[in-house]
């Protein structure tokens, strides 16, 4: 068994608005001196530390947990899994 770090990124699906990102862009960044930023999208990340036999099973285990425990709502969010280290 090895220890893995799995990063789960949860963000609104494309086409679903992200009011927080919009506010940070329009009311903070674009009010400042930096005008080359054209979009900000927010996401939430959960970094799991898990013991599994390999990278693949670490990822699939985490995916299972996130689906089962409704860590995100598939109706609104899309989620990406990245296994970082062994």
């Amino acid at each position, binding site marked *: 068994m090895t220890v893995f770090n799995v990063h789960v990124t949860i963000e*609104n699906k494309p*086409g*679903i*608005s*992200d*009011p927080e990102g919009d*506010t940070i862009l*329009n*009311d903070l960044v674009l009010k400042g001196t930096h005008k080359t930023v054209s979009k900000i999208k927010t996401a939430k990340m959960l970094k799991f530390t898990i013991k599994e036999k390999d990278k693949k099973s670490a990822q699939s285990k985490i995916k299972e947990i996130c689906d089962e425990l*409704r860590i995100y*709502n598939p*109706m*609104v969010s899309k989620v990406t899994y990245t296994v970082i280290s062994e």
Partner: protein
Amino acid sequence: MSLEKQELLDLKSKIGREPTSTELQIVAAEWSEHCSYKSSKKHLKMLPMTGPLVINEKGYDSGVLDVGDGYVVTAHIESHNHPSAVEPYGGAATGVGGVIRDILSAGTRPIAIFDGLRFGNIENDLQARWLFKNAVTGIADYGNCLGIPTIGGEVEFDECYENYALVDVAALGFGKKDNLIKNHAKKGDLVVLMGGSTGRDGIGGSQFASDSLESEDRSAVQIPDPFIEKLIIEAVLQARNDGLIHAMKDLGGGGLSCAISETADALEIGIEMDVAKVHTRESDMHPDEIMVSESQERMLIVTSKAKLKKLEEICKKFRIGCSVIGNVKFDNQMHVKKGKKTFANLPTDVVANATLLDLPSKKPAYLKTIEDEKKFKPISNYSKTLMRLIASPNIASKIWVYGQYDHEVGIRTVVKPGADASILRLDNGKFLSAKIDGNPKQCYINPREGAIGCFEEACRNVVCTGAKPIGMLDHLQFGNPNDPEIFWTFLESLKGLTDFAKSFDIPCVGGKVSLYNETPKGPIKPTPVIGVIGLIDKKPSVPQKILSDDCLLLVGDTKDELGGSEFFEYIHKFVGGKCPAVNFDDSKKNMKSVLSLIKNDLVKSVHDCSKGGLAIAVSELSMTNQIGCKVSLEKVPGEKLDPDRVLFSESHSRYLLVCDKTNLSKIETILKKNKVSFKQIGKFGGDAIQFFNGVKSIIDLSVQKAHKTWIHALPNLVLHGKKSG
């Protein structure tokens, strides 16, 4: 999104030609159950909607009550069931947003929110737990950000909501009568869309609300933006103060299609609009999408050319969108263009008035035997049973819920949530109290008596604060109305509410119908939710601390009415039995007498008996005051019943009164004079909740232990999955 075959024929014959695709979309949105009330409208007319305090104006989305001295209170109720069942956070939050904009569109400032929440059995259903938790967060995040206090509500769990959610939201507004928007339009007036941008989210939403969940359009998820809503509120109220608004309507179900057609129809005008002028989130939206998008946080305003500049300045100050999308005509047509090209051109009365249905109804077969009781195992340990009820999700304290809601902002909240009804102070020195109540368990057993019971319970809660009920909101939530048995339950409930409202002179000032509430396992139980608004002219009844030796009186008869009670359902797992029925004469006498005792300052505290019956009502007084109580069951007014019946019957019209013993005889004189059934049933003191049957002690619970269980049961369950009790 589509019309029924018959509706399509209707539409064609009314306009005398083939409709365009945009016209089809517009009409389908407006003729959906949600927007047109096509199944219910004929029948809703039976409710009394007028009264000396009711102000009726055309085009209002909320009811208006005159509370004197030039001030008005507005009220409205809505639900957001389907969206909350798939996305509880966003669904519940945008539900708050919608009802707030209804209050705003009359020109009043929203001052209070109420939420009624219903889910499956959270003791064993993880999804119900997830729905509950997220719906509460959604309401909290939205209302808190707006700075409108959420001051009351209810939470209930029942297996019939498995895989589903009922999220009802009611709101109150307050303002000067002179500031009410008098919806009108003048020649040359402009139609302005203000607020957030129009996007693809929520497309198909209102249609979705009228479909059962299985055929749901899963793209109909709405993202709440309470920050924009807050800015809209401030911008609209500023525009109102500056006299810039001729007419106003919020965008809710059906989006622009409904807002434009209903505004035009109500004002008897035509509106010509250009979808290219709508500020959209994405650049490639089709006119059909723009017309039916249900993006939240938008308002439609009719203003004049001369006033436009000031309106635009206000919107700019509050950094919200403001687009002139059309102008007022006097041809009674709803004309939708993109640039020069016409996409729809329909008579507004055709769009705004769907053909109403007269659905068949039939008494459900199950009702024949539902009131029959079965034999129960006798209760061996009443203390244990009471403790289990105290810990049961429906009875446990809801502080975990309302503690997440800012209920103080606005500095009006005189009595905070946790009492029977909260109290708000008004600027004219009067006080307002309100509560919403539902009881699907009783409504399932007897739709008529159950609905009346909800109404009476809401009245009772308000009366406990010393307020006289002045208006009612009804929210009728049922399954698929095309099932004659379901439709029968709808009609029965409605008739019951109508009879009560007429007999008690409480006008219905607003309401909502939500049909097609179906879960994978079938229809929900009939769930009317009733809001009652009460007014206090002088001093509110703020519960005073109960002390040792204070007397406990019970007003009203306890009857053998345990159908739908928590005792039957939670302890005996039995659905059925005799549904509590309100005796109108007794109800009136009891209300009147309680109000007069409060007015004369004779009682320290008043609490109504409802869910869980007398045993729970007494326990609640003891727990919240941290003092013991000794009650004799044989003193309880009413027919002679077994102890379990006396303890847990949910008969209506009952009030617990607490008084200093020096006031006892004065109280007795008044109650006797009013020919009210009552008795002193106990005394406070010590540190245990005790019930005696004759000389035999049948319940003896430590107040402290009970209190701890009552407070922690719900969060333990929701957060840690732990059952208490």
